[in-house]
């Protein structure tokens, strides 16, 4: 749906993005990750046409983006902001009309949202009278009101209490199900695991990881399994022999859990075959690394190319 091709952007001597490419599939929730200063905001600003790239291009639905396409985008910047002295309803209408909605359509849709979120009473309040969280809810509505094809949310959950964060989360999922593509930039790895189907990780002006979350997690898994068993832990450890390495010592008791890392060339089957005589295996599951761990491992790697080999497109 959105295709970013070889974007280079420099500010004076500072190289903000260096040959960044990625593809955001239609109707999916896509996570844009990266440490602070990696170039995420610059990339988002290029997609939203706030700035232009020095080279490279952004394709929307297969065609290079034009100025008119900004109406197909909804953008919630990380730094939220509304006119403080303007009334909520009037301001939401203004922002919606700047996105190309007619006054009538915008009014009808706004009333719908305000009723659904039970905030109709805010309409005539000035923004400065609202709390920070309330203002952010208004801003979220103005971001998605014109039903954009692509919604770009920069840290959408920051500043919200758990209840409102949940409200935003459910709206994101709902819109995604309706076919809207969502690009989520966040440092909250929990919500990435929960929401995102695909991610791209930018570090030091490059894409270092790109692909479906499941695949990436699998790729980062280091053949470690949790094996539940009953029986003698010492016998279990002895039985592992050359097939696996015991990472944690199993706890004594009737029910034990061992973390086993497969040794080079060994398969899970071999480990199980070896240990079956020594213990009663009650469960096996693969230990998949979380996005948090993947993030840290990808970013702290001094040579990003080694991680991204074959991963970037």
């Amino acid at each position: 749906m959105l295709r970013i091709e070889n974007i280079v952007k420099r500010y004076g001597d500072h190289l903000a993005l260096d040959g960044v490419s990625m593809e955001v599939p239609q109707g999916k929730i896509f996570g844009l990750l990266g440490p602070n200063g990696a170039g995420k905001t610059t990339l988002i600003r290029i997609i939203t046409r706030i700035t232009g790239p020095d080279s490279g291009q952004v394709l929307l639905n297969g065609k290079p983006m034009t100025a008119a396409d900004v109406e197909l985008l909804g953008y919630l910047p990380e730094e939220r902001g509304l006119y403080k002295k303007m009334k909520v309803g009037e301001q939401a209408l203004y922002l919606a009309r700047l996105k190309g909605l007619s006054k009538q359509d915008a009014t009808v849709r706004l009333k719908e949202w305000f009723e659904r979120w039970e905030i109709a009473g805010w309409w005539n309040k000035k923004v400065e009278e609202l709390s920070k969280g309330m203002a952010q809810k208004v801003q979220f509505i103005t971001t998605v009101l014109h039903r954009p094809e692509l919604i770009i949310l920069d840290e959408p959950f920051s500043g919200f209490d758990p209840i409102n964060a949940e409200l935003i989360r459910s709206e994101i999922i709902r819109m995604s199900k309706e076919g809207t593509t969502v690009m989520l930039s966040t440092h909250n790895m929990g919500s990435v695991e929960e929401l995102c189907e695909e991610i791209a990780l930018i570090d030091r002006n490059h894409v270092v990881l790109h692909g479906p979350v499941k695949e990436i997690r699998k790729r980062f898994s280091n053949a470690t399994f949790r094996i539940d068993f009953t029986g003698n832990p010492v016998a279990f450890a002895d039985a592992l022999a050359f097939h696996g390495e015991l990472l944690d010592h199993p706890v004594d008791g009737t029910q034990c859990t061992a973390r086993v890392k497969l040794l080079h060339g060994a398969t899970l089957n071999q480990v199980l075959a070896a240990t079956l005589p020594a213990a009663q295996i009650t469960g096996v599951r693969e230990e998949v690394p979380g996005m948090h761990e993947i993030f840290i491992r990808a970013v702290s790697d001094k040579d990003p190319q080694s991680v991204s080999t074959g991963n970037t497109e």
Partner: protein
Amino acid sequence: MGKIQLIIWREFITRVRKPSFLIMTILGPLLMVGGIALVVFLGMQEGGIQNIVVVDKAQLLTNKLKETDDLKFFYEKTELSDSAFKASPYTVMVDVNPLVLENNTIQVFYKNLPSLNTQNHITSQIESVLEREKLRVNNVDPDTYRRIKTALKVQLFDIDKQGKRSYEQLKAGIGFAFGYLIFLFIFLYGVQVMRGVMEEKQNRVVEVLISSVKPFQLMMGKIVGVAMVGLAQFLLWVAISLILGSFGMGLVKDSMGGAALAKDVPQVTAQLQEQLDKQGVKLNETAETSEQLGVMLEVWDELPVTWILLLFLFYFLGGYLLYSSLFAAMGAAVDSETDTQQFMLPVTVPMIIAIFIAQTAVYNPDGPAVFWCSIIPFTSPVVMMVRIATGNAFSHPGELALSMALLIGMFIFTTWLAGRIYRTGILMYGKKVSWKELGKWLFYKG
């Protein structure tokens, strides 16, 4: 509504709705008219009755000076000592020396400086009495004297203007007033543009806005919207001033028996002069005032009013666009109002130069400084107004055209320049911006 119209509308309506706009609209003309009235009033008004003691050693003036409601004359034959005067109820002491007929000198001592009105009254009264005394001493018939006495009135004519009297200076003054208005509006509303840009930047609302519209559209929308606020305010001021003015004129008419404002002012003046002469009084202030009014009316008739207004509008908008785009760039480049100082100076200096040069143009509309400043776009909106009002600009249509063309070219250039600084600046936070930095922004790729 197009996006840029939407922006213009928002900028306009949010400002016009503010209570401060209403207050300024009402207070502006009131302050202006009130201020002038207050100055005039204070200048004419006495803080009560003036008791003037005339030390008339030669007995020339005693009981011959005309009193008014506020000015009472008392006569003494001998001089009062300083302490005696201080202790006396007199407020002013006029010391007329015995040789006054020869040396034409009197000395006035006061406790509080008497108003110009009082000074004029004392002077004119004593002058006329002394004159009559001299006529008597010299055996000259007063009627003969009046025929002989010559009050020279100089009437200036511009040879290019078919023998019409010219009041260059008065017209230049009117032009200066228009120029000053332009100066005032550029500052008042240029700063509003700057504040508006800074507000959007500080609020961070700007990032949302420019994901919908181009930064240049946003900047121009704000500049045009604020210009409309300025024009609206100006038109309201004109309307209110006209209403207040006609009310004021009505008062003047009443007090002058409705005659002074008629077209035949010189005739009225002559009549007045006659009456006053009969009373043995010199042409006094009332007659002077009515003559000035006559001149005003004549000048007004002579002024190319339509052209002045059209060109005023042109220079007002041109100057405003030129400067407000710079103000917008300034607002975008900084994080807070205190940081604007370093950029404020280069913007304000040309305007202040313009006001200075325009002032000299009132007395010398043909000087080289006036010429150059009326051509250079940064000063031309103010200075050219003086040349337009005197008609000087119309005798040099080429210069006027050049000045206008340069102004158009320059504001296109400054808006382009400002647009480039603006689009980078509004997204730049926490950076102390230098001139060098600004220069770099000009060459960033969109």
